Structure formats: structure tokens, C-alpha cells
């Protein structure tokens, strides 16, 4: 599969935007400048970037508590995301949602979610709506290895399979649910094998290789658009940071995994890997990539300025938007 230069640049930009944005909010949460629970996906950028690069604007996604990356890769605006995380009126959800609940319907982002496994039936329903309406829009559903132990995972795969719904189930397997190693609570070591139980294709991909993720996603999207039904894609990856920002203060550093393990995954950084590939294959010169980094830094600075200058909502807004 030949990937166009524009696509390559798009994926690199997505990964840089995610890395920059999440590194910043990690620091802001650590400094108590933003409230609430913040879960970052640093180290896992390639799955969000590769999957979303295979989607078009009218396609939809559902996301998770660790959702910034998915939203950014689907085109989410850093300024409105940042303002939301600050709890400001200018944020995507007018301050009502915060980090775990960002939504942008205009981009097909049906939302991050605070409930593990909740996005699976919602994505299935989004695909159902497309099928009922006779449209060929596809829905991609991001979730973790932990979520694949929820009943909603199995119920959704069965439903999508039996109705041949245009949905791509994307399991980001980072080996942990909170602080619990996956192997201690999950009967299989590859989530992809669970696809067989529901008679849909299950594919394993190196989740730190954005090009491979993009290729696998493109095939699954083509299948779904053609009415051939769902695919389960398992992206093997790792989160470099804690489950939630601030956990080390409670549990201590490396309470449930070793420094060696974390460091070994840092060597597999999806961004550096892509940069190396570009250099080795003479695809994009370093200057062009650097320009993207510079532009992303500027975008992030502007996003923070926007968030800081946006106003907090007034108490009277608390009763808005309960009903349509």
C-alpha cells in the first residue's frame, strides 16, 4: 500500500499534537492548574493517528477516559479542548464535561467517556444509524484491553457481527487496566482472538507503528463501507505515564511495573520511529517534520492562552442543557 505524502504528514502532525497537548496537561494537572481526573495516552499516539487517518470527516468515533488522542486525531481543536479541561465556558462542553467527556459532533466525535466499555454499544449504534439511513459512514470505536472484559464488549461485537454493521473496534492494548496487569484478569493474551467468538475478523497490529495501523485500518474501513461488517483491530502498545496523573504521589513510583519495562517502551516511541522511517526511506525531510513541530508548539501556546483567557461559567448556567 502506497501512502501519500499528505497522509504521512497528517499522521505525523496528529501524533505531535497529541504528544504536545498531553505533555502539557500532565504538567498542568500536576501543578493543580486544572481540576479533575486526567488520563494521558503518551506513548500510544500511533493508534489514534493511524486509525483516524483512515477515516473521513463524516465518519464517527467513540472514545474513552483516555481520549484526548482520539479526539485530536479526528480533528479536535486544541483550544476548545484545553478550555474544556480548564472548566471554562469556551470549552467544547461549556465546562460541563472536562477531560473525560469531550465531544464534538461536527467532527463525528461522539465523545470521550467516563464509563469503561460504554463506548462500544454507542459506536455500534452509530454504525446502525448509518446502515438504517443507507449511508456508508463508518464508526471507529476506541477502547482498552480492560474494557474488553465488560459485557458491553461481547454484546456489541455480536450485534455488529450479526447485523454486519460498519464499525471498527479498536482495542488499544497497553497491558494494564489501572494498576492491574492485564494477564492477571484476562483469559487471553491477545484480545483479537475474541473476534472469532463473534465471527468477525480480528487483527493484531504493532500499535506503535503508525503506518501499519493505518494500513490495517484502511482495510477494515473499506470492508465496513462495502457492507461487509465489523473488524476488531488490536493495537499492541504501552502507556508511558501512570493510569491517572498524580498516581505516583499516592502509590509511589513504579508501584506495579518496573522502570526497565517503562524505559524499554520509551525506546519504541512511535514518533521517533516514524521520523526514522522518513529519513531511511527519504520520504519527508527533517526540516519539513520540524516545521510541523514548530507549528504544533504555536498551536498549543495559543490553545493555552485561549483557555486561560476564557471565562469560567456562571453559576446560573448550571441548569442549562439538561433537556433538549
Amino acid at each position, binding site marked *: 500500500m502506497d501512502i501519500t505524502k499528505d497522509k504521512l504528514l497528517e499522521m505525523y502532525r496528529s501524533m505531535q499534537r497529541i504528544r504536545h497537548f498531553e505533555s502539557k496537561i500532565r504538567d498542568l494537572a500536576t501543578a493543580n492548574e486544572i*481540576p479533575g481526573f486526567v488520563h494521558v495516552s503518551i506513548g500510544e499516539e500511533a493508534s489514534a493517528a493511524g486509525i483516524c487517518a483512515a477515516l473521513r470527516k463524516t465518519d464517527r468515533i467513540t472514545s474513552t477516559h483516555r481520549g484526548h488522542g482520539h479526539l485530536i486525531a479526528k480533528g479536535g481543536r486544541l483550544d476548545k479542548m484545553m478550555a474544556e479541561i480548564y472548566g471554562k465556558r469556551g470549552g467544547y462542553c461549556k465546562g*460541563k464535561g472536562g477531560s473525560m467527556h469531550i465531544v464534538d459532533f461536527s467532527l463525528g466525535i461522539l465523545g470521550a467517556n467516563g464509563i469503561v466499555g460504554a463506548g462500544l454499544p454507542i459506536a455500534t449504534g452509530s454504525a446502525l444509524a448509518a446502515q438504517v439511513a443507507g449511508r456508508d459512514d463508518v464508526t471507529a470505536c476506541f477502547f482498552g484491553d480492560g474494557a474488553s*472484559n465488560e459485557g458491553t464488549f461481547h454484546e456489541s461485537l455480536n450485534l455488529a457481527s450479526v447485523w454486519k454493521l460498519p464499525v471498527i473496534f479498536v482495542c488499544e492494548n497497553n497491558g494494564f487496566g489501572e*494498576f492491574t496487569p492485564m494477564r492477571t*484478569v484476562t483469559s487471553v493474551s491477545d484480545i483479537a482472538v475474541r473476534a472469532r467468538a463473534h465471527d468477525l475478523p480480528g487483527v493484531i497490529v504493532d500499535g506503535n507503528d503508525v503506518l501499519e495501523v493505518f494500513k490495517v485500518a484502511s482495510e477494515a474501513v473499506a470492508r465496513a463501507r462495502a457492507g461487509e461488517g465489523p473488524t476488531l483491530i488490536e493495537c499492541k502498545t504501552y502507556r508511558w505515564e501512570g493510569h491517572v496523573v498524580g498516581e505516583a504521589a499516592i502509590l509511589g513510583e513504579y508501584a506495579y511495573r518496573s522502570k526497565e519495562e517503562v524505559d524499554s517502551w520509551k525506546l519504541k516511541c512511535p514518533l521517533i520511529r516514524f521520523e526514522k522511517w522518513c529519513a531511511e526511506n527519504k520520504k519527508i525531510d527533517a526540516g519539513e517534520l520540524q516545521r510541523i513541530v514548530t507549528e504544533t508548539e504555536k498551536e498549543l501556546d495559543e490553545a493555552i492562552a485561549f483557555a486561560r483567557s476564557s471565562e469560567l461559567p456562571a453559576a446560573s448556567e448550571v441548569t442549562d442543557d439538561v433537556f433538549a
Partner: protein
Amino acid sequence: MPQTNFIQAINQALSEEMRRDPNTFLMGEDVVLAAFGATKGLIDKFGPSRVRNTPISEAGFVGAAVGAAMAGARPICEVEFASFFYCAFDQVCNQAAKLRYMSGGQASLPITFRAVYGAMGGAAAQHSETVYAQFLSVPGLKLVVPSSPSDMKGLLKSAIRDDNPVIVFEHGALGRLREEIPEGDHLVPLGKAAIKRAGDNVTVIAIGAMVPKALRVADKLVKESISVEVIDPRTLIPLDETALLESVEKTNRVVIADEGHLRGGAAADIAALIAEQGFDHLDAPIKRVTALDVPIPFSPPLEKAAIPGEDRIEAAIRDLMGR
């Protein structure tokens, strides 16, 4: 005597009861490493067979607690945040709550569920809800809402010994509250309210995290010669109706303070009791101070507006007193 906080009180209760009854075991997500600290160290005392990390499968492990209880075990089951109960509603409400009755008294379901509820600062709608009212109209469940470390310990120990499904709700913002806890086998019976502060002019029936707020308001108003009685039902099922009605009989005015919602909430339930059985003792309408009927919002000023604060308890008291 040393001061004990809410989380340590839970830990002590679990530890003592698990030592006392080898039939007990603990399960839940991340109970081994203990994200909230309440189950810390229990793995070292009781080993991996009796302290189990579950998969993220609420319907599955809550249901497994029901089955284990039916088969003779005494499970203690942690559901992290109380709104995750929604993922296991059938097993709690259709199974645990009903099986004894439906089996003509054959089944006994000695299960203790523990979960964190309430607004704790920017956790947003799916992690901040006060959900006990959702279980109030499910006969067969007991509901416990402790407001202090000492009550927490004594009530949790009683819950574990109880032969029925009991849900113990722990407010997420009370974790650091400290006090001295009586030594020895400290038990607080289910169904017994506590007068947290005696007073003559107004009764504030306060639930869970509203108790410390009501006590601060009472402290403030005493300087203006408004004498506030603060009474904590401690358990919503069974409810100590006598104690609540006696307090109203004494003060003739009542405010019910609860972090749950107004419609269909615990405050509505208690207000109906007082209206039906204490009407003759009332000099003024019953006042409810509750969360607004909105999902709990993320942004701090919105969360503050949604959740009942001391200012609203004070205003309700002043209103009743005409001061």
C-alpha cells in the same frame, strides 16, 4: 488516643471482620494495590485467595458475589465509584435484593457492597453522583451512609456481619476526616440514627457528607442564639423513623440536607415520613436542601452551584426561624 481517618477506618473494619470470619473474602477492581487506600495491605494479611482483583466486569463480579453468597460465602465487594453500579443493576436489584423473598426465605445473601459516591471536585457527572436514592425503592437492600470515621468503622463491621445485601456508600470528599475511634470491637447497629449535636430550635436531618457541613452551620448559628439539632440517620434502610420524628417533635422545624437530587431523593423520602407522621408537630413547612436536578457538572463553579453547600443549609434554617 490516635486520630483515625475515614479510609483507615474502612481498612480497620475490613481487616477485623476478615480476621474474625474466614468465610469473608474481598473482591473488586484494584483492591490489591488499593487506589483509594481503603484495602491497602489486606493482601498481605489474607492472601490472594481472599483478596482478589477482578476484571473490569461489574455485572460479572457483582453477580458472582450474589452467587457466592447463595453458596455460603460472605463476600465483600468493592464497586469503586458508585455510579458503576449502573453496570451491574440487574445483579443488585433483581437478584441480590429479591432472591431471599422470592425463595420464600431459603436464600440468605450476606453481601457487603462498598462504593465511593458524591462530588469530590471536578470528577464530573459519571464519577460524582449520589446514587443511593436509586436503591431506596428496591426492597431487600440495606443502605448505609456513614458521615464520620467512627461510624464508618462501626457500620461497616455491622454490615459485614449482616445476613442481607448491604450497600455502604463512602463519600469521596470525606477521606481525610479524622477523629478518635473507640477501641475494641466497635459496632454501630444498622437502623439507629445519631444525634450529632443536640439543639432546640431547628432539626437538620443530614445525610453523609452533609453532616459535617450541618455541624459547621450549627456552630456558626449558635452565636446568634439559634440552637440547631443535627441528626444523622446513618442508614437509609432501615430508617430510624422514631429518632427522626422525636427530634422534630422537640424542635418543630426541620431541614433535610442531602447531596442527592431533589426529585425522588432520600430527602423526599424522609420529608414524606415527617409530613405523614409528624405533621402535628411542625410549626413551618419542611425544607429540603439537596443537589439541583442536573447531572453533576465538571467545572468547579458549576459543581459548587449544583451541590448543596453550607450557605444553603444556613439559608433554610434562617428562613424557618424568620431570621
